[in-house]
């Protein structure tokens, strides 16, 4: 077949620019809207700090989701994994295990769950949907077992400080989220495994025929995602000062939403960490803004779903443009 005759040139039209920057513009509009509604509160230092604090855990889990989605898969078990990791850390500490040992074991549990997902998907060739749905189910069960169906609290002061402490008047989780997302950004961008992830997500067969070890790349992506989401879950337990079997589960859908929103930020429409952070910020700003306006949290959930639909529609419109 003869190919398109006109070399495809990126358009510079206003419409396309709007479509291109749509997600970022939406974020700015959202901020402007809430600022206009409550100029006294919304952009105050305290509230901005609040937003950052609120999104820090989501940012960590969305980073993990980004890695998996760069490879072209997705992981439904990340939220459950984070809950389980928080519960394991809490249960061990309540049982007298030293804090850092408990944290390491809990992170290790997350890593193992990720490894299991990766093995099922990359080596046994299950679909990511089936495999992570199944592990999610089991992991939630494990989390109920660990917590005995209750909420574990009275955690050590030192542990709670990880989630509630401040440095220069900014909560510690904000710093941790920034460090973790920077590490993942650098890994995706500058390391050989990061390039293998991009290649695998772009086209598995091409990557394989180019000598990329596709199976190992997918295995490592899920493993890293499991580890990182466990860290997020441990931090969440520290922030709340307690651990329950379901406290991380909301973050699964929100993390997927953030990555989807982020995919609309760049031209190629691929998952990317910078975009994910824009997505996380949109979700955080919206939730915080609606809270300030006194909107019911169930309504917030409805709005989040609508925003995902809007984002995906936007990106498919953009692909049609290309």
């Amino acid at each position, binding site marked *: *077949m*003869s*190919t*398109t*005759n*006109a*070399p*495809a*040139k990126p*358009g510079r039209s206003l419409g396309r620019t709007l479509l291109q920057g749509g997600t970022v513009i939406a974020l700015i509009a959202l901020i402007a809207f809430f600022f206009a509604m409550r100029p006294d509160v919304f952009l105050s230092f305290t509230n901005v700090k609040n937003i950052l604090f609120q999104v820090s855990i989501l940012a960590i889990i969305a980073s993990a989701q980004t890695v998996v989605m760069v490879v072209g898969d997705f992981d439904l078990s990340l939220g459950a994994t984070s809950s389980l990791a928080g519960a394991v850390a809490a249960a061990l500490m309540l049982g007298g295990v030293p804090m850092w040992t408990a944290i390491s074991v809990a992170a290790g549990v997350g890593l193992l769950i990720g490894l299991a997902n990766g093995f099922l998907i990359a080596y046994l060739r299950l679909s990511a949907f089936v495999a992570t749905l199944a592990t999610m189910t089991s992991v939630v069960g494990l989390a109920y077992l660990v917590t005995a169906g209750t909420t574990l609290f009275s955690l050590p002061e030192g542990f709670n400080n990880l989630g509630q402490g401040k440095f220069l008047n900014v909560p510690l989780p904000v710093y941790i989220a920034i460090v973790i997302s920077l590490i993942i950004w650098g890994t995706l961008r*500058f*390391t*050989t*495994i*990061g*390039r*293998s992830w*991009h*290649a695998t997500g*772009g*086209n598995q*067969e*091409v*990557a*394989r*025929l*180019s*000598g*990329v*070890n596709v199976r190992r790349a997918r295995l490592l992506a899920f493993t890293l995602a499991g580890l990182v989401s466990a860290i997020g879950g441990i931090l969440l337990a520290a922030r709340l000062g307690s651990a329950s079997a379901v406290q991380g589960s909301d973050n699964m859908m929100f993390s997927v939403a953030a990555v989807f929103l982020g995919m609309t930020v760049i031209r*190629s*429409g*691929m998952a990317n960490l910078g975009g994910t952070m824009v997505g996380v910020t949109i979700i955080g700003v919206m939730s915080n803004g609606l809270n300030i306006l006194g909107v019911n949290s169930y309504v917030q959930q409805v709005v989040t779903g609508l925003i995902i639909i809007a984002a995906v529609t936007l990106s498919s419109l953009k692909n049609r443009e290309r």
Partner: protein
Amino acid sequence: MNAALTTEDSSHTIALEARDIFKHFDGVHALSGAQLSVRKGEIHALLGENGAGKSTLVKVLTGLYTPDSGTIVQNGSDVEFANVRVANRAGIVALYQELSIIPSISVAENIMLGEQTPNRGGLVQWKTLRRGAQEQLDRLNQTIPLGKLAGELSPVQQTMVAFARALATNAQVLILDEPTASLTDTEIKDLFAVLRKLRDQGVAIVYVSHRLEEVFELCDRLTIMRNGETIITKNVADSNIDEVISTMVGRAAGELYPERGTATSTVALTVEKVDGRKVKDISFTAHKGEVLGIGGLAGSGRSELLRILAGAQKHTAGTITVGDKTLRPSPGVSRALEAGIALVPEERRSQGVILSATIQDNIALANIPGVSSFGFVSGSRIVDITRQGMLDLQIKARGQRQPVGELSGGNQQKVVLAKMLARKPKVLLMDEPTRGIDVGTKAEIYRLIRELAAGGTTVVAVSSELPELMGMSDRIIIMHEGQISGEVQASEATEEILLAYCYGKADSHVNN
């Protein structure tokens, strides 16, 4: 030239005519004065290199694009097609390479898709539907079960169903874009029979193809386009392949294939008794500086052999030796690359390049070990090897960061080559190195293959086009049902000998 354009005489009825069509995109002229005049009851070849404007012209004729200026005349009166549906209704139907059948519904429904479904109170009148569908299949002399799901049909049957649908919409002008790309030789024969039948029924057929041999076998007249202009229209009987090529390229065809004579006697690749899926007991050697062609019918195991050599497919027995280093069994792509074997695969778009990724990301893909240290990739080294590759292969692009999907087929193929050549392979395997690329770029690829050979690389190339096989190779191996059925020096090869081997007729030509 203009004289050639005005060869119409009154004894023929013109079904569809495009006059002085201009069309530009983003300031680039895709068509500048294109002409096409198709008679009722003829098969008319529309030829030109990639980018000559064939596709754009077809899209203008079928209402997909609105021309900037120019007129379309159907049966003597000016027409304008606002969209594809209007053109279809006027009897102009284009069938593209990616067939437009719906695999999940029945043959009958596919055929009658363009029509109002016969129904009574919302219930489908299956009898009427099937009768209508059968009528169209009868016109094509096809016996395809009407109730079967279209997805279960063979490629040629699917093509036939698409034809039948076009007929059901009462197509007067049928435009075909590379209809034989996925068909075997026998299927092509069937297709041609049907096309001739349609022609005899008065349908005007526009046939877009890169396969000139087919054009000369099938078509009545041809129109050649170059740079968006129509260069010439003439009877196929009054033309020949060399003339067509030189007109398409805009210079004398000259030597499409460079001179041979770079092969040495040093053995570079030894394959011994290799077995694998679709491949049985393969043994051969290839030399430094040699271009070894591998031919055979589709399904004869050619591609599988290359994939085994490249480590992309497992082999169950036998050894592969590069120079004096024997590879471990089923080494995997990465180790095969390290040993110096690189593969340029058959399907460029699904196996060769990541279309959404940039040129430099694609080239980096096969060179991760070369552009990284301690697990970190070096952006500047990627830029360097990409610059080198784009320079060596003269890849035409806006820059290193242009997505490969935006390039022409020929330039995409060059990116695949650049990606592998950056590994400096000792043995370069190429599966259909010029599939779907235009004549000008073909010549470049042949020259490049020979330059690589002259530089000491061993090139093993699979091709299903016999002239290409004979032109580019030093020596040719033919496969039949997974085994080597013959071997011949390219200088002594004829199409007859090669075809005999292709069909497994080992005869007096074989010495071993």
